[in-house]
């Protein structure tokens, strides 16, 4: 309802005492939101426990606020940030009647440019999660907050005299200036204390490589808008690399203008960047260094050496495109490869990479940091341990034995969002505030600072943030808001008030630091010993659950992973050849052994995976935190070496002869006979068939005729559209059993096709929403007119009229219709639901509506202004989320609209067009050199 939303607003002022000055609108209707949310918190607890249907109607239009407020307060938007690996993406949170209902990208923020990823979308879900921790507990028993304050005071009294000896603070990766400042203050107050960071997904080798190359911990940030040729050595700039949304946008913008970067991806485990690569080289980890060295040598980097058949060709392409050529290195590569890459980029005088001061407040090799704290614990030097946000008991390598160590510390405090593996082992268990309900600040991948402001009041009354805990430890308790204000007051001086308001309005608190041009050190080249032969374990963040911190987001668990299409868990991924060599078929259970530790995992062959290595996605097998994530898949941390390495040789794999249930929506079809996905050579076009003849005159579509065009050349299969659709349209989560039965409810699915030989296929993605066919096959078979067309050409699904014959789905060649096999309404009826979209009862069909509620909203907004709808007034949820702007939506009656222009593109085609359904959703063919047009 972009059209209907008032301008974004800043924070709520502190509540004033009530004054009966009649009809004076209180700013932003702050109070009714608070109250509504209090009600809602209760209702959630209820619906979670008793499963009661009659929850109080939170923020119900009938529930007038105590204080008068302008109607606009019903819908408000807040610009804030959400973090991934400690680095922020700017988002805009839409609230309805005070509830955060949708997260969208902040166009002004460099790490978002208006797009979101699945993790940002899921934030509203975790915010309202009934499973989140709500009470302060001591050894599992709820205690009043005062007891915690007393305990911290006591700790202070004990630590102060001895300069904080025995105090250790363990946080996740910290980019927040405020948190860094407070931590610094704590370390100053307690000189003997130590601060450690822990991030299971950290790429320590990158840090080490940069240090080797330049003597300082720099971040190499690609600029794909200027790149012409990109060599990704295990790097996944479109997927898991920090700043991926930005990189994806830069990449597609340049590509659309015909100066796009040629992606050369050498990787062991297929990534979405690899799927979109112009050239992809399955690269066994053991050969990585040799390959990188060979390329470097071919580029004339002195001291570099190595041999690889593909190296010469790759080097030639890079040279040809200098200075637009760049080498990017990702997780799983050794420090020497990172260093090599820096040398290569220097050699190529690459303009497509920026060397920036590291966005983290204190960049450090995190595995080493964790190792040192373990050593101290072992030496009995740790008496007080504060774990703020991190969950090492789960995501530290099991080899470290963190859980055992934790028990030997007298005073342990865990600040966690839910009662997770670490919480259970700590004395003090403090609920952590959700990013959407707490103050803070943070830096983006390029160092751009931004403020985090609450979009809602705390849903967990007792929840706290790192800042509250640390300031309490300092003896000067401060609210997060005050602390953040202090930080920026110091930075901004007297211009503070203006800039503060601006920062909250815009979602940015400053500029990115300028790039550096440090000289390459002499001794950068320190080759590593060659990796021993044999089966290699490759650890990787799971596309759905990352390191496991997202394992409790039901939306993400159920979202099929882009390439494997696995849901609700993970599996040991390997090349089909490797599986065959071990006599394994998909779904066979294997026992994996590494360094004497064993796990059981399902085997899952993935076309294009490098042979002789097995990818073990992290984030499975959670042991605590709630029913959603617990026991989904296997826990790869159990095998991870103590040094937190991303690759480890010496893996052994044997079949247990049992079958493991892998829940997947993949049908193992690798062919695409119906040509659902078309490909053209650069500049090529597809034959544009004329409108197929019909005996009857077409129905007129006065005013608008809505249509959608999806550019398959832009789609990177990131699933953001699908999750955005789920969030926007109250699409239920059905659970693994139902998914395995073929009853998933996603209105928008992303089909994945492989072309070419199994060892190294070309993969393509195709988002498939409802086609809204003008001659919809689903409509004539409905006995009760429950699905039909309206004057805008929308293929309507009228839920209250549907009697559930399911014939429409039978007759839908695209199979985009979904049926409510069960009643999902109770689970969906939380404040997180979008009030504009009704909940569907059991036994009715549902499907993509083109976000018809957004159309209606935009229309009434426009007619209120007495004007016609303009192109861009209506933005569907999927379109809004897409990082590469692959989806355009608009009015086909308006020849100037973006979608009309897309339809004029030579790559335009209709899926299954030969069936004469005249779909309103059409596609633009993918561009690939090898395709013969």
């Amino acid at each position, binding site marked *: 309802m972009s059209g209907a939303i008032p301008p974004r607003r800043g924070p709520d002022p502190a509540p004033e005492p009530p004054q009966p000055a009649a009809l004076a609108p209180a700013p932003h209707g702050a109070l009714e939101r608070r109250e509504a949310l209090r009600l809602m918190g209760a209702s959630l607890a209820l619906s979670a426990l008793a499963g009661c249907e009659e929850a109080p109607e939170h923020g119900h239009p009938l529930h007038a606020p105590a204080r008068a407020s302008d109607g606009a307060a019903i819908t408000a938007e807040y610009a804030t940030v959400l973090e991934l690996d400690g680095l922020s993406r700017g988002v805009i949170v839409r609230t309805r009647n005070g509830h955060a209902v949708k997260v969208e990208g902040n166009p002004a923020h460099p790490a978002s440019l208006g797009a979101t990823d699945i993790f940002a979308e899921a934030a509203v879900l975790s915010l309202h999660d009934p499973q989140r921790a709500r009470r302060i507990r001591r050894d599992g028993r709820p205690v009043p907050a005062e007891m915690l304050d007393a305990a911290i005071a006591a700790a202070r009294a004990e630590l102060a005299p001895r300069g904080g000896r025995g105090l250790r603070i363990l946080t996740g990766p910290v980019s927040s200036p405020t948190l860094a400042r407070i931590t610094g203050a704590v370390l100053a107050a307690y000189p003997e204390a130590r601060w450690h960071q822990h991030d299971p997904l950290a790429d320590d080798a990158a840090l080490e490589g940069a240090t080797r190359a330049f003597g300082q911990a720099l971040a190499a940030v690609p600029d794909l808008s200027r790149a012409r040729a990109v060599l990704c050595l295990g790097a996944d700039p479109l997927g898991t690399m920090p700043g991926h949304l930005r990189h994806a946008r830069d990449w597609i913008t340049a590509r659309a203008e015909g100066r796009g970067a040629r992606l050369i991806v050498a990787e062991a485990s297929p990534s979405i960047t690899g799927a979109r690569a112009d050239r992809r080289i399955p690269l066994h980890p053991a050969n990585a260094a040799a390959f990188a060295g060979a390329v470097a040598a071919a580029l004339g980097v002195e001291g570099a050496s190595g041999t690889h058949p593909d190296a010469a060709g790759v080097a030639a392409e890079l040279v040809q495109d200098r200075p637009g050529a760049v080498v990017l290195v990702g997780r799983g590569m050794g420090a020497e490869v990172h260093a090599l890459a820096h040398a290569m980029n220097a050699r190529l005088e690459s303009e497509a990479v920026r060397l920036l001061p590291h966005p983290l407040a204190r960049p450090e090799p995190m595995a080493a940091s964790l190792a040192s704290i373990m050593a101290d614990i072992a030496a009995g030097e740790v008496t007080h341990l504060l774990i703020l946000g991190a969950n090492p008991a789960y995501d530290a390598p099991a080899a470290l034995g963190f859980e055992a160590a934790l028990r030997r510390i007298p005073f342990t405090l865990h600040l966690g969002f839910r009662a997770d593996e670490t919480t259970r082992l700590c004395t003090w268990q403090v609920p952590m505030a959700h990013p959407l309900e707490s103050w803070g600040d943070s830096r983006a991948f390029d160092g751009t600072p931004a403020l985090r402001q609450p979009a809602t009041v705390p849903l967990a009354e007792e929840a706290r943030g790192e800042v509250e805990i640390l300031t309490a430890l300092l003896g000067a308790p401060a609210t997060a808001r005050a602390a953040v204000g202090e930080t920026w007051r110091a930075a901004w001086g007297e211009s503070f008030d203006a800039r503060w308001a601006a920062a909250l309005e815009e979602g940015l608190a400053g500029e990115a630091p300028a790039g550096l041009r440090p000289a390459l050190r002499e001794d950068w080249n320190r080759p590593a010993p060659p990796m021993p032969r044999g089966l290699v374990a490759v650890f990787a963040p799971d596309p759905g659950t990352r390191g496991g911190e997202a394992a409790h987001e039901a939306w993400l668990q159920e979202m099929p992973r882009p390439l494997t299409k696995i849901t609700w868990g993970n599996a040991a991924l390997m090349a089909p050849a490797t599986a065959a060599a071990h006599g394994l078929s998909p779904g066979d259970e294997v026992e994996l052994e590494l360094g004497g530790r064993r796990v059981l995992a399902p085997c899952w062959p993935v076309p294009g995976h490098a042979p002789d290595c097995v990818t073990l996605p992290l984030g499975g097998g959670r042991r605590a935190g709630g029913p959603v994530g617990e026991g989904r898949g296997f826990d790869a941390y159990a095998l991870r070496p103590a040094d937190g390495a991303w690759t480890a040789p010496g893996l052994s794999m044997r079949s247990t002869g049992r079958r493991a249930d892998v829940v997947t929506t993949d049908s193992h079809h690798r062919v695409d006979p119906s040509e659902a996905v078309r490909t053209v050579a650069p500049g090529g076009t597809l034959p544009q068939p004329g409108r197929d003849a*019909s005996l*009857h*005159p*077409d*129905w007129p579509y006065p005013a608008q005729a809505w249509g959608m065009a999806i550019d398959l050349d832009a789609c990177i299969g990131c699933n953001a559209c699908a999750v955005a659709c789920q969030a926007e349209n109250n699409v239920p989560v059905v659970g693994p059993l139902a998914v395995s039965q073929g009853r998933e409810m996603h209105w928008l699915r992303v089909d994945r096709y492989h072309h070419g030989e199994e060892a190294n296929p070309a993969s393509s993605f195709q988002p498939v929403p409802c086609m809204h*066919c*003008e*001659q*919809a*096959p*689903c*409509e*004539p078979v*409905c006995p009760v*007119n429950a699905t*039909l*067309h*309206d004057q805008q050409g929308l293929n309507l699904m009228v839920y209250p009229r549907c009697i559930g014959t399911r014939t429409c789905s039978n007759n839908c060649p695209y199979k985009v219709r979904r049926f409510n096999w069960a009643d999902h309404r109770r689970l969906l009826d939380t404040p997180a639901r979008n009030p504009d979209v009704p909940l569907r009862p059991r036994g009715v069909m549902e499907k993509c509506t083109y976000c018809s509620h957004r159309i209606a909203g935009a229309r009434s907004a426009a007619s209120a202004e007495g004007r016609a709808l303009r192109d861009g007034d209506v933005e569907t949820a999927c379109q809004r989320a897409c990082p590469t702007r692959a989806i355009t939506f608009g009015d086909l009656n308006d020849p100037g609209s973006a979608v009309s222009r897309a339809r004029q593109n030579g790559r335009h085609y209709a899926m299954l067009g030969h069936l004469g359904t*005249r779909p309103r959703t059409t596609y633009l063919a993918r561009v690939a050199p090898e395709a013969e047009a």
Partner: protein
Amino acid sequence: MSHPPPFGQMAEFAEADALTEAVRAARAAGWRHLEAYSPYPIPEAAEALGVSAAPVGYIALAAGAFGAALAAGTAWYISVHLYPVNVGGRPLNAWPTFMPTTYLVAILWACAAALIGMLALNGLPRLSHPAFFARGFHRASADRFFLLLSSDDPLYEPEGTAQFLRGLSPLRVSEVRSA
């Protein structure tokens, strides 16, 4: 005999042909109010009685036509005028798709009308009928054949009628009381 007044004279036969002959004779003698009973259809006898089954057919035909018109008309009026909607881009009056129901409803009406019409023409249901007073009449549904000369007929006068019937060599002739 005894009041109440007689309903008529009933003759009982063992053979279908005998009955047919009797009917022919009675008709030849000018009897108009007469009814014959048999355990199974005897077309010849019916013919002799001058009964025609054609009306059943006409009723069915008319009902069928009405049913067809009703079905097609309803579909058309609803789809084109009561609530016209765009269904899969089809024209409002997609008459070919109305035909299946039209056809089925026509047959439905015709069949129902055939049965009901038949009963109506036969004056059924009539649970109680003087004929059942006739002696041994229960065998009319098994293996006997009966001819009734009704007292409504101007030719009727007890003795003469009985005489006439005996002349047809029945197994038995008896008077049937009307109540």
